[in-house]
Structure formats: C-alpha cells, structure tokens
C-alpha cells in the first residue's frame, strides 16, 4: 500500500509541477492546487498509514499520529487562502495588464520590453 501511496504522491507532484511551469495563470493555479494536494498527502504520511485508528480516544486500539493531522488540517485551510490569493492576483493582473500570462507579457517581446524599462530605473 505504501508503494501505491507514494506513486500517487509522485504523480500528483509531477502533474502539479508541470502545470506550475506553464505560461498562463489559470494553469499555474490548477498546478498549485494539485501540488498542495500532493504536499498535504506527503506531510500527512509522516504519521504513517494507519487503518481504523482515528485519533479519538477510546475509539480504537491503537491511534494514528494526531500531530501531522493537525498540521495538515491547518495547511489545507491556509492552502485554500493562498490559492484564492493567487487566483485573485491573476484576475487583477489580467485586468491591469490585459493578458493572463504569468510573466505579464508575451514571450517573443521579452527583449524589446525589458531593456527600455530597465534603463529607466
């Protein structure tokens, strides 16, 4: 089961990272969401994989490690807040810059755009 678990984590990380490297904001947001799933599962598994051992006193014989669970619980909520922030940031960026590119400009124009801005600084 551990092997299956880490394969899933690996595949999700792979997909998340690939999407994070895309050039459009929405893909990056989806990638970040995927990555946060992977990270949460990764952190959670530091308490090992336990079946039927919820950390409720008196409910089972042996308990799963409650500490990673508590950490991951807050991580899920904070992760949502961060993703929401990135989403809104990309909406704002689209409103202000007129496109939804991560870099805020079209790739082919890189050289033309960067240099004049730099020289002004």
């Amino acid at each position, binding site marked *: *089961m*551990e*092997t*299956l*678990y*880490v*394969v899933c*984590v*690996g*595949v*999700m*990380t*792979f*997909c*998340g*990272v*690939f999407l994070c*490297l*895309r*050039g*459009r904001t*929405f*893909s990056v947001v*989806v990638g970040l*969401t*995927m990555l946060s*799933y992977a990270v*949460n*599962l*990764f952190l*959670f598994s530091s*308490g090992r*994989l336990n*079946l039927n*051992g*919820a950390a*409720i*006193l008196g409910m089972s014989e042996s*308990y*799963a490690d*409650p500490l990673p669970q508590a950490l*991951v*619980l*807050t991580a*899920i*909520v*904070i*992760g*949502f*807040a961060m*993703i929401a922030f990135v*989403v*809104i*940031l990309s*909406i*704002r960026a*689209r*409103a202000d810059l007129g496109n*939804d590119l991560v*870099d805020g400009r079209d790739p082919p124009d890189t050289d033309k755009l960067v240099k004049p801005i730099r020289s002004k600084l």
Partner: protein
Amino acid sequence: MELSEFMSLFWITAIMLLGVTVPLVTERFGRTANTVFTMLPPAIALAYIASLIPTVLAGNVITESLEWIPAVGLTLSMRLDGLALMFAILILGIGLLIILYARYYLSEREAAGRFFAYLLLFMTAMLSIVLSNNVLQLWMAWEVTSISSFLLISFWSSKSESRKGARMALTVTGAGGLALLAGLLIIADIAGSYELGAILASGDAIRDHALYPIALILVLLGAFTKSAQFPFHFWLPHAMAAPTPVSAYLHSATMVKAGIFLLARFYPILSGTELWFLIVTMTGLITLLLGAYVALFKHDLKGLLAYSTVSHLGLIVLLLGLDTELATVAALFHIMNHAVFKASLFMAAGIIDHESGTRDMRKLNGLWRYMPYTATLAMVAAASMAGVPLFNGFLSKEMFFAESLHQETLGFLSWMIPVLATLAGVFAVAYSLRFIHDVFFNGEPVNLPKIPHEPPRYMKIPVEVLVALCLLVGIFPAFMIGSLLEAAATSVLMKELPYYSLAIWHGFNIPLLMSVIAIVGGVLVYTYRRHLYSFQAQFKETDAKLVFEGVMQKIVAFSAKFDEGLNNGSLQRYVALLLLFTIVITAIPLINLDVAAAHLPDQPVTFVEIVAGVILCLSAIATVIYHRKRMIALITLSVVGLIVSVAFARFSAPDLALTQLAVEVVTVILLMLALYFLPQKTIAESSPSRVVRDLGIAAAVGGVVATINYAFITQPLDSISEFFLANSKTGGGGTNAVNVILVDFRGLDTLGEILVLGIAAFGIFKLLTGVKLAMPTANYKGIPWSEDRHPPILTVISQSLLPLALLVSFYIFLRGHNMPGGGFIAGLITSVALIQQYIAHGVDWIKPRLKVNYQSLIAWGVLIATFTGIGSWFFGRPFMTTWFDYFDIPFIGEIELASALVFDLGVYLTVVGATLLILASLGKLTSVHRPVAEE
C-alpha cells in the same frame, strides 16, 4: 595618581569611540575650541598608554578580555605588547599633531567637525587593530579603517578625483580585507582559537599545515593591498586627492602601515619559510625600486611623496621578508622613522600648497626667499628621507643596507639585493633633492596663484615637533627609542634579541660605502635628470585611474549581463531554476542514502485502494493533458481532490477528510468564478522543447518527492505524539486529539494560521477593489450565457437546505473537541451553505437579507481567539492555558465547557468571514455591489 588603576585597555577604544561625537558637538564653539576638545580623547588615551610604558618595556604583555557571546566563543580581547605600544604611540602622537595642523589647514568654510569626527573614527579603528587580541576583532577594525579612509579621501566630495580616488582605495583595500578575513579564518581554524595569544603560540602547526600556503597568500593579499605594495600600489597616489592632513596621517604614517603591522604581528607564525621569503622579499624589492623611480618624475609635490611612501613601504616589507632577526629590528625602526619624517614632509607640502596655491613643482621655484623657516624644516625632513647622516632615516637605512648584504637565499643571485637596494637609495636621494632644490631654489616662482608667505605660527608646531624628533633620534638613537624598539622587536621575534648597536658611526664598512654611493649617485642623477626625463617622456603614461575605472566598468557590465540571464523578469524561468536547484540539492543526499537501511514491509493493498489510486493518477494526468480546456481541467482536478479526501478518511484522519471535502467545494466554486473572468481557453504556445524540458523537471521533482516519501513512510514511527494522546483528555479536556492539538497544545500556531487567513482575505478584498474587467456575455464558442440566472429548483432546495446545513455545522462545531469536527470544519460548512445561497439567489437577493460584514467577522474571530488566550493570564496561567470543567444541566445531561470552545469559536468566525469575503467579493464583481475604493 595611578591612572592604570581606574582604566583598562577597553577604555581606550571606548573613549575614542565616544570621542567621535565630540567634534560634532563642539563645532559650534568655534574652530579653536573645537580643535582643543577634539584633541582631548586621543590625549587621554595617550596619557593612559604612556602610564603603561614601564610595564610593557619591562617585558610584560598586558591582556584583557571580556566575554561577549561566550556561547559561540566570541570574546572581546585586548593586548598591549611592545609592537602594539610602538604603533599606539605613533597613532596617537602623530594623530594629535595632525589635529592641530588640520585646524589651520582647513578653511573656515569647511566642515571641520565632520572632518575631525572621521579622523577620530579612523584613529579608533587603527588603535583597535593594534590593540586587538582577537583576530576577528582585528579584522573588524581593519575594515573600519578602510571605510574611514574612504570617508576622508572623499572629504572634498565635490571633486571628481576625490570620489574616484576614494572609491579606488575602498575597492582595493576592501577586497584585500576580504582575502584577509579568509586567511585569518584558516589560521584560526588551524590554531583552534581566535585569540592572538593562542595563535602566536601555534606557529609550527600553522607552517606545517597543508593550508599554510593558501592562508599565507590570503593574509599577504590583505597586507599588500593595505600597504600599497606592487601590484596594488596604484591606489595610494590617487588617495592623495584627500586633504593633506589625511595624506600625512593615513597615507604615510599610519593606515598604510597597518599592512606592515599585520606582517609583523603574524611574523612569528607565518615567516621562516621559503614561500614567505620569496613572495615578501620580491614584492618589497619591486615596490621599493618602482616607487623610488616613479617618484622622481612626479611634478606634483604630493605625488612625489606618495610614490616615495610606496617605495619606503616596499623597503619595510623587503626587510620583513629578509627573515633575519636584525632585518626585523631594522624594519620596525624604519616604521617609526618613516612615519616621523614623511608626516612632516607631507605637512610641509601642505603648507606650501596652502600658502602658494599650487603643488606643481614646475611652478614652485625659489620659495626660500618667501618661507625660509618652512624651507629649513622641510630640508631636515627631506635629508632624513634621503638617508643623510645625523638624521633618523640614515640609521634605519644603513641597517637596511647592512642586512641586504647578509642574504644567501637567492643563491648566486643574492648579490642583486644589495645592488638593487643601493640603486633604490640613489633614486631616494635624487627625489629628495628634487623636492628641496626644485621648490626652494632653482630660480623664480612661475605664475603662482598667491604670493607665498610663512604659515600661521601654530601650523608649524607639528612640523617642528616631528623634525626635532628626526634630529634627536638621528643623533641619540639609543637614548630616544632604544628601549621601545627593543620591546617591539622582542614581541615580533618572540625570543632574545641578537646584539645590535644603535649608533651613527660603525666604522668604515660596506653599508657606509653603499650610503656614500647612494648619496653621490643621487646627486649625479638629479644633476643630469634632463636626460632621464627625455628618456621617460618616450613612454606613454598610463593613468591608473582610467585603467581601474575601465576594469570596474567591465566587471559591472559582466555582472549586469549575468544578472540579466538569471533575473530577466520571467517568473517561469525563476520557477524552473528554483526547481532545478531543488532537484540537485535533494537528489545528492538521496544518492548517498543507504538502500539497505531497515525498512518495514508494505501493508497489504486492497482492490478498492488500487482502483482509487488509478483514478487519482488518471485524473491528475488528465488535468495535465486537458489543461488548456479549462473547464475539463477543473473537473478532473476536483476528482483528484475528492480522492484525496477519501484517502484521508481511509487512513484514519476523519478531521482531514471533512476539511478537505469542504475546502474542495469552496476551491472549485472559487476557480469556476475565476474562470468567468479569465480567458476560457489556453492557446497552445509552449514550444516542444519547452514542453520536454518541463516534463523532465516535473518528472525529476515528482520522482524525488516520491522517493523521499517512500524512504520515510517505511521507517518505524518514532513520534512525539504519545504526549498529546496521553494528555489530550486530562490536560485539554477533549478526546479528539487532533482538535485538542489545534485549539490547545498548539493553539498559538492556530492563532497564527487564522491571522494569515484573515490577512489573505483582506488582501484579496483590496486586490479586487476597483478592478476593471470586461465581462464576457458569451462563452468562447460564442454561445451566450443563459438568461435564467437563478433556476427555481436550486433556489427552493438550497433555501430549505440552509437551516439544515447550519444545524449540521453547529453540531460539528460543538462536538469538535471530542469527535471529528471543530471550528475549521464547521466554518467551512457554514461558508458552503451560505455560498450556495449566493449561487441560488444572487448577490442582490442576499444583500438585504444577510447583513453581516465579513471584515468585522474576521476581526471578531481573531480578537476572540486572542482574548481567550490572554484570558488565562488572569488566572495566573501562561498564555493559552485551557480551562475546562463538567456541568450537569437538567434535561441535557452532563456537558463539558472548555475555554478551548471559545477559542474554536474565534477560529470558526475567522474561517467563515475569510471564505465568504473571498468568494463574495469575487462574485460581487459582476454586480453593483462590487468592492469600490472608499475615500
């Protein structure tokens, strides 16, 4: 009164450092008062040092130390031995004379207070170098001298040459300082201590160490840059853009001697090897000759003196390199002599400049008639510089000649050292002669800006004192400085000194002959200088300043290009580079990880789990494949999220499963809302090579993460959670350990988390304020959006579901302490229930019915959570101690009330407020209720 009873060496630096503010404060009392007050701190320090002279001369080394950060082995430590004493007297004594001189040198319009403050800062740093007993402390002070030198050279900051000269000096000496730091760290590492005492005692260990050559070269780089040795000598002549008191003090008498001090200080541990001899001797010899030769051709008075200083510094370095005991004595002797005669010559040059308006020797002629007194003083000092008998420079120079004869290290080429030394002597006599003859005789002045005259009375005093010293030391050497020199030499050589005699007359011998050759040769060279000048005129003069600036600009251009390559403003590139770097630093330890380390076997896997895993992987991959069709990607993404929450439930984490489920719902709603404002489709624009690169990076990261994950989940668990499980009920009053950790054991973390949540929500609100977006009226295929905004079925069902959903969330909230649930989950469920109303009815319907300000909700939540924590203070408990008790309520039975519940309420309110603020603000963008900036 014994001064030493009240003071310690630390007071010297403390008084000097405080003294830095004195000139700034006393500037308003007029120039003379300002000068007097400025002289007080160094005078006190000098008096204290003077009171210690008998102790040090008796052969004692005074050390004092203060624990600073004992945990990392840092101490402040001071040391006064013969070498430090000699330098401290030079620094303070000449420093006092310089302050007096500067009073008359600076004009009334100039900021004398600032100048004196810089000067005292430099003096403090220089004293700290020589008195330091800790190499890190020494280095620190070393850097401060570089900085104060920069400030002093650029004192006339309106002049371009001042700025350039200052920058050059700082760059060269600063770079050398870094090399020195590296060298000192190596040495301290070998010796096992930063204390000078311990380091000086481990000379053999250092010389035998494999890193000795590197340490030596690094320390020498520091010393040679500071002491303007070839090929780093070029900064010193350009530092002459400084006011003349600075040139006299820093760039001839003291700061440039710091490098030599360093060589002398580390002489016991670094010298005595072939490498030391070769590098130090050759550098000294080249610098000696080059400086002496170039000095002859300088038309600027200060330029001549600057190259002469370079030459004399080379001489001292050469002596230290010769590595015989008497050569070291001669080196120390010449440090003192050079400081005295060169400072007085600089001051004389400053007087000439001040009173005649130029330093150009082609214009300055025949000044003898206008300022005979100054001329006499200058002549005595110049004679000393030339090495004429009866003056102090003669004595050390003769010792130098004598020692240059006793060399065998160059084998059959050893004869070159005395010959070249004599040649340098010839040039020294020639440029000294030029300094005197060109300026004071040689016809009439040419177009001087001012009519020259004698300077104010007190401006001459510092020169007089120094010139008197030249004579006194020159005639009664043993009486004047015999014992001081002996103490200094003993502390450098760290053993009994060999016999030597400080006297003018040693009989007819070869050194005397060399002196005679030098003087006669010098006079001849000067007499026939025209031929030499015309020869020299054939060379194209290179301006070190231009070369230096050119090199600097090249370095800056290269850095800019390098920076452009890395930091080109493309977020995609940053992410890729960051990930590549992460792969490298995480993969290396994995390669070294022992595969055969104890692993637990895999638990058995069931069919359902396999199916879930396959669906998860397929959905994740489908998200990647269809990421350009955004709606489909969102659906597959939500499948992944659902399976993750199922996985949490499967692996005994019901709280996580509930949270993940609720967050999943909220996230999908959020992303769908976002899709409305973002383009519906992504154009395929990544080049195939880019896709391959990204696939490679992603696969590597995924592989590494999975490997690390596998490596630790198959290890036996050794957790600190036993504590939480054991104390959850008794200490926190709840049976749900996860919730007790959140609201009790790690309550402070949770408080931080909800604060972050609140901040994120406010940030989002702010970002959405005033955003202007074009609202699409149709989807990307051109099909218009449905007019039926709020389907009746959804409206009716959601409305009737609302009370139920709120009830569920209330239940989940209450039971959270003992069963899966709690503030986070309840908050999310409430949010989902309310968002459903927004979706079903629209903002216009909700607005008048739900009069809740989400911003205040967040604020209340955070406040409640914080005050629950603070509440425990009133019961004399630490922050966030939980109180709980059990109550028997009729009809309901026994219930538990815990302060943690109130804390959880804060969490609940923050989560509801934040989630709704985020989603509602986004949703409201399409309506008239959108966030607007309020003035």
